[in-house]
Structures are given as structure tokens and as C-alpha cells.
């Protein structure tokens, strides 16, 4: 096994709601190599989204160390974390999270705009992405003029436009019908085929079965890791 791209050790995430505490993640140790295709599964409330948010640096653990490409990212300043999010990580959400007032092309270009990439290069890369995801004649449409599948394709195009090393997708098919969902999964698998690490949260055992590695979460703890199966 090559050096881990993602390395979690002793991760704890506790939410305090008044007096009660919710242990969303308990003592998590996971290591993921570059180019892996991982499905995170488990019942609702088991901590899948919390895990993905931590991986995407949208949230900080209460304890433990998260190393991304050998670097401890939990101790980075907010500005440095933003840079890591911008350059290394692409996020795909269940509810798409497109900016309603921006067109498909503008939504796809958003991460590049935030990163300060010159307009000419942005235009070229957006044109490529629109073609790759079959959205050429939807470039000027706003999200409310797009179907669910098209919206999620725009979201995936946006997540990949900065050529991240890791794609994190939190139930990307949750709001789509079966056929459209499978199409989205195919896109993510194509990305994985080109060497990008893909981590998908899903309820669906069929879709989860596509992945080469499955992580089964339960009550904030890692219940089962298909990669350890063979080793054990």
C-alpha cells in the first residue's frame, strides 16, 4: 500500500446540545490511499456527513489528527484551510447547493473565480467541463431551469474544476431518481478512473457496492472496513 493520502487517527467529534452531548464520531482511525474509491455507508445519524465534513475541512474535530497528503491540516489557520479546500478538495452535496442567481457556467466557474484564476483560463476550463458533462447547451441556464440530474452534473463539474485530489460526495444521488443517480455515479467513477480519490456517502447498498472499498458507520464508530477484511 502506498503512503496514505488521508490519514485520520483518534478523531472525536462531539456536539453539545444544551446539557446533552452527541458523539457524532468516536475514536475514528481511517487511512485512505490516493486514487481509492470509497463508499461510506450506515444508518441515518451514524456520523457519515460529520465524517465527510471533517474530511472536507468544513468542520474541526474535537480531538485527533487529520493528515492530508502528509500534512496535519487540523492545526491550519482558517485562511490556510480555505486554500486547501480550494486546491485539493471538491465537494458534491445531496441538495446540489448551486447559487440560484448564477448560470450553470458561472456556477461551474465559481471556485476558479474565488481562487483568482484569470477570466480567459476560466472560460476555457468551463467550456471543457460543459462538454465533458454534456451541458454545452445548458451553459446560460440558471439552476431553476435545469433538471435534478443536470444540476448535479453542474455541481460535479464545479467540484472538479479546480482539479482536486479528493472528491467528497455526500449522498449525491439522494435527491435523484434511480437512473439519473446511476448516471451521476458513473461520472464519479470516471473521475476515479482518472486517478482522483472519490469518497461517496450513500444509503444505497447497490451504489455502495460499486466502490472498491466500503466503510460501514454505526453510532459514530467505524463498524466495518472492507479493506481490513482481507488482512484480518
Amino acid at each position, binding site marked *: 500500500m502506498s503512503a496514505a493520502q488521508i490519514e485520520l487517527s483518534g478523531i472525536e467529534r462531539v456536539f453539545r446540545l444544551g446539557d446533552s452531548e452527541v458523539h457524532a464520531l468516536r475514536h475514528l482511525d481511517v487511512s485512505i490511499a490516493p486514487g481509492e474509491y470509497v463508499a461510506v455507508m450506515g444508518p441515518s445519524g451514524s456520523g457519515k456527513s460529520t465524517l465527510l465534513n471533517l474530511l472536507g475541512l*468544513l468542520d474541526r474535530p474535537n480531538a485527533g489528527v487529520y493528515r492530508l497528503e502528509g500534512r496535519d491540516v487540523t492545526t491550519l489557520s482558517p485562511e490556510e484551510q480555505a486554500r486547501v*479546500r480550494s486546491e485539493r478538495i471538491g465537494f458534491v452535496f445531496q441538495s446540489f447547493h448551486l447559487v440560484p442567481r448564477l448560470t450553470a457556467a458561472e456556477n461551474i466557474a465559481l471556485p476558479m473565480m474565488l481562487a483568482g484564476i484569470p477570466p480567459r483560463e476560466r472560460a476555457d476550463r468551463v467550456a471543457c467541463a460543459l462538454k465533458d458533462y454534456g451541458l454545452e447547451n445548458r451553459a446560460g441556464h440558471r439552476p431553476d431551469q435545469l433538471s435534478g440530474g443536470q444540476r448535479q452534473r453542474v455541481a460535479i463539474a464545479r467540484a472538479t474544476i479546480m482539479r482536486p485530489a479528493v472528491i467528497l460526495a455526500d449522498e449525491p444521488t439522494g435527491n435523484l431518481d434511480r437512473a439519473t443517480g446511476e448516471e451521476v455515479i458513473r461520472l464519479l467513477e470516471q473521475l476515479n478512473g482518472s486517478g482522483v480519490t472519490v469518497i461517496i456517502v450513500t444509503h444505497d447498498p447497490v451504489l455502495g457496492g460499486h466502490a472498491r472499498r466500503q466503510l460501514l458507520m454505526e453510532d459514530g464508530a467505524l463498524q466495518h472496513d472492507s479493506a481490513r477484511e482481507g488482512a484480518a
Partner: protein
Amino acid sequence: MRVPDLIRFARDAATGSPLRTSLLVLAVAIGVAAVVVLTALGDGARRYVVNEFSSIGSNLVIVLPGRSETGGFNPANAITSTPRDLTVEDARALLRGTAIRRLAPLVIGTSEISVGGKLREVIVAGTTSQFIEVRRLSLAQGRFLSEEDWGRGSAEAVIGAKIRDELFGSEPALGKLVRIGDRRCRIVGVLAASGQGLGMNNDELVIVPVALAQAMFNSNTLFRILVEARNREAIPAAKAQAEEILKLRHDGELDVTVITQDGVLATFDRLLGVLTLGVAGIAAISMAVAGILVMNVMLVSVAQRTAEIGLLKALGATGRTIRMAFLAEATMLSLAGAVVGYVLGQAGAALIRHLYPTFPAYPPTWAVLAGLVTALASGILFGVAPARRAAALDPVQALSKR
């Protein structure tokens, strides 16, 4: 994020919610427009008064018949009989005053002037040779009334610039004989064009010796005595002396009113001071209201766009970028409001000038600049808090808000 992108992003965010945006722009615009219009009124009033008074001469003390014309209502007036008239002899007596440099008695009436078949109604001023110095007028041609005994009344006249143009056109006026009422006079001088002064247009005036005017109007009273004090410091003394001399002459009764330019100006000054204070107060209030409105609307905007802010952060936006975006939006809205307010204010001032042509309602440059700068500064200042709040949002918390 690049500056053009930042501006475009902020603009789209602003135009994305037209109601919020137009409310904000309106609030700032009203503030700026209020400053422009109110200072135009205040400064216009000040300019009007200063113009009026500087055009009638300086160190001027004016004697008018009757008591207390400007001093407010005095119950004694209601009872006492008609006041004694002012006469040429009264004026002559005033020359004794040590604080008085020179003076000019003044008789006013309307008459007709005619020459070569042209006829025109004019205001005739009967006075003496020193009138031109007392009133600080200047001549375009010829000379002023000759220095002669005030009782003599030579048949000579000095005419205003406009009268000259109307009666003589391009022909020479000096030395011509004209008929004024039932008298024939020779034109000895023409006043330089000057315009308005104390409600009396010098350009349409015909000036003749005081005795001639009194004969014309068949009266021996004076309308005013214009007195010039030796200097600015001598004005109160000149006033006191005039009152004293006339009281003596009028059997110990002070039945004239002596007004000084200073007194009148001081009254106006007080009034205008209050007006300016009021203007400043209203302007400050409207600016503060606009600023607080900007802040609140921007805070609402932050709350409404929490999910978007979370998303931007998830996509790699730094806190700085988010701060700049919100600040750019607040600045843009304030700037738009300032421009709209400036245009509205100038239009308002122009409307006032159109309705009251003699009132110079121009906003002073300092006030316009102060208004614009204050609007921008308050927009930016009050935009900072919402921008900071937006930038401080935790990405995952923000994202989960819908």
C-alpha cells in the same frame, strides 16, 4: 478573488434582491439629497442677505420717519399721533455728528420720463451729490449731481443704465434734455449697470437733486436719510448721534427709527445660524438613519445568504474574500445612493431656484462633498460589521441553514 470579479459578484448579489437594494439606495439617497437641498436653502438665504446688503453700501446707517419700524410692535405707536416728517433740514443737521462722514437725503417717487417721443414710467430718486459715495455706486458716463445748495435743485438728472439703453439706444445720452414729469432736465451722467440693491433697481433709476424731486412730488418730506459712519467702529456712535440730534430737533421726541446694517445683519445672522444648525442636525440624523439602515439590511442579507456563504467557503473562499464581497456590496449601494441623492438634491435646488428666481439656492461645494463622503463612509463603516459576521460563519453550520 480579482477586483473585477468581486465587483461583478457584489453587483449581482445586489441586483439579485431588488427590493432590499432599492430600499437601501433610497435611504442613502434621501440623506444626501436632504444635505444638498437644505444646505442650498441655508446658504442661499445667507447669500441673498449678504448680496442685498453689500449692494447698498457699507457702514450705512439709515434714518426713517416713524418709530420702531423694525423693532417689533410697540403699543405706544398705536396711541401716538402721526410722527413728525423728516426734512432736508433734519438731514443737514445730522452733518454735525462727529461720527458721521457724509450723508444723503432721499426722496422717492414715480414719474414719467420722455425724450424724442419715447415715454417710460420710472422711479425718481431725489438726493444730493454724496449719494453716489454713500451708496457706493459708480458712473459709466458723465458726472453725478453737482455739489450745490440742497435747496437749489438744478435741472439735471443722472439715469440708470437700463433707462439709458431704452431711451437712447446707441445714441449719446449725455447733455440731452429730457422731460421728467413736468420738468425739463439735462442728463449729466449715466450710472454703471449694477443690478439689484435693497429692493430698488439702480439700473432703472432716475436721480435728480432733492429740491427738484420735492417740487415734482409737491412735498417737503424725506423718505430716508442715508448716513455713512466714519468707519465700522463708528456705526453705533453715528446711530446714537443721529438719534440725539433728531430728538432735539423734534421737541425731545424720538419719532424716527435709525437702523444699522449691522443690526439687521446680526438679526439675519442669528436666524441663519439657527437655520444652519438645523440643517446640520437634520443632515446628521438622516445620515445616521441611512447608515443604520445599511447595517441592518446588510445583516439581514448576511442572514438570508448564510447558506451561500457556507457554500462559498466550502468552495475555497477565504474569510477575507467573503468580507470583501459584502463590503463591496455595501460600498456599491452607498455609492449608488450618494449619486442618486446628489442628482435628486441638485434637481431640488434647481426647482427652488426656478420657483424663486431671486433666491440663489446653490448648495455649497463643501456641503455636497461632505454629504457624499459621509454617505460613502457611513455605508462602508456600517457595512463592516455585517461583512465580519458573514466571514466568521462556520462553513458547515452555514451550509446546513436553508
